[in-house]
């Protein structure tokens, strides 16, 4: 199969999957209850550790998303490499990868702020709350999609046909 055909198929697939996932998450979020149970964090060391670990996980995934976004743009800005984005399908793939990583970072950003405000104003965090799970899952879904389309973009936009058997 030709590289251009593969790129076209990948671009359409990326569009469909990205729009589908985003619409599903948007609809799911609009029907979601944002309440949290009031759990006193002052009296439980285990809960405090769990909360810290949860925040660390969110933070590391958020940082990696941002780093990947930087790497992707470095390929475009630095002309001394062999990554060339020229055709519409390649641009499409590049945009979807960017959006996935940005949405992953966005989920981290909004989720982090939301959780911090709950801790600040209510001294509570309920890791079982649907809204907390939503932010965490949305961040992971976009992050994994971002990595996947990142790899595909690099493979299909390289000057050499990396998919061809030698």
């Amino acid at each position, binding site marked *: 199969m030709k590289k251009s055909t593969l790129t076209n198929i990948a671009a359409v697939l990326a569009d469909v999957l990205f729009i589908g996932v985003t619409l599903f998450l948007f609809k799911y979020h609009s*029907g*979601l*209850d*944002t*309440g*949290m*149970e*009031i759990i006193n964090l002052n009296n439980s060391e285990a809960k405090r550790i769990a909360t810290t670990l949860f925040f660390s996980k969110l933070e590391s995934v958020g940082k990696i998303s941002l780093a990947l976004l930087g790497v992707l743009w470095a390929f475009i800005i630095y002309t001394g490499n062999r990554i060339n984005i020229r055709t519409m399908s390649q641009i499409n793939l590049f945009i979807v990868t960017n959006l996935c990583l940005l949405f992953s970072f966005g989920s981290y950003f909004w989720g982090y702020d939301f959780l911090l*405000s*709950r801790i600040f*104003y*209510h*001294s*509570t965090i309920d890791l*079982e*709350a*649907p809204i907390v799970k939503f932010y965490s899952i949305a961040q992971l879904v976009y992050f994994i999609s971002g990595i996947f389309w990142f790899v595909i973009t690099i493979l299909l936009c390289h000057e050499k046909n990396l998919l061809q058997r030698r």
Partner: protein
Amino acid sequence: MKTVRTLACLFLFVFVFPSVNVGQDQAKSLKNVESVLMCASNKSKVTLDDTARSQILQQYRNASYETKKAVDSTTPESLNKKLGAYFEIKKLSGIQANLSDKDVADFNWNFVHGSDLVSVRIISPIAARIQKVTSKDLSMSYNIALEANKDMALAIPINGESFSLHASTAKGNLIWTATGVPSSKKITFPSSLSKGCEIYVNSEPDKAIVYFNDKEYHWPTNTSSARDPGKWKVTIKKGSLEWVQERVLEKGETWMINAKLK
């Protein structure tokens, strides 16, 4: 002319002079009450031993519930009135008192302890002042300081009905309002004293599904929930049993629900 002068003198003696005397008496007694109230509000520094205090409280406690209720419902400054009475009794006993905030709380605790009202312990995460408690029939004003994280015994007129409780900072800004029926005799202020609001949902029977604005909550009763201020409709369902109520919650407000499912 002479007759007119005589009639005028008679009029003055019969109607005007007596009323002036009565007015002066009233003013005098009002002044007494006023000084007592001022004394109560200024919390003058005099000591009162435990036996004397318990005697005074016992006298006050012996008053009928209706009397206490009448005193409390007549004026928003009910606490001052009660303290006024407290000082009057104390004066009669020849004892002088030192009324600290704790004494006021003790006084209230004892006052309600012997009546049909409910006494609760209140705990606040920050230093605050209890301002006012209102329920179906009663409205009581307080001005009692709560230390941070230290519970204080306080008698409040809940009487098994719904009530509302207002608390302010030491500077007088309203920071918290709680409404509903507390499930236990211990009321804990939420930590959110500025932005969000909190809803505590208890039901009988428990383990019922809770809906906030028709969206299912992830924990069954008895539970609590941190929320944004606004209009909240709470539905509690267990099988065919249902309970629904709606309320607008302001910043820092707490709604305590104690639902009996029908």
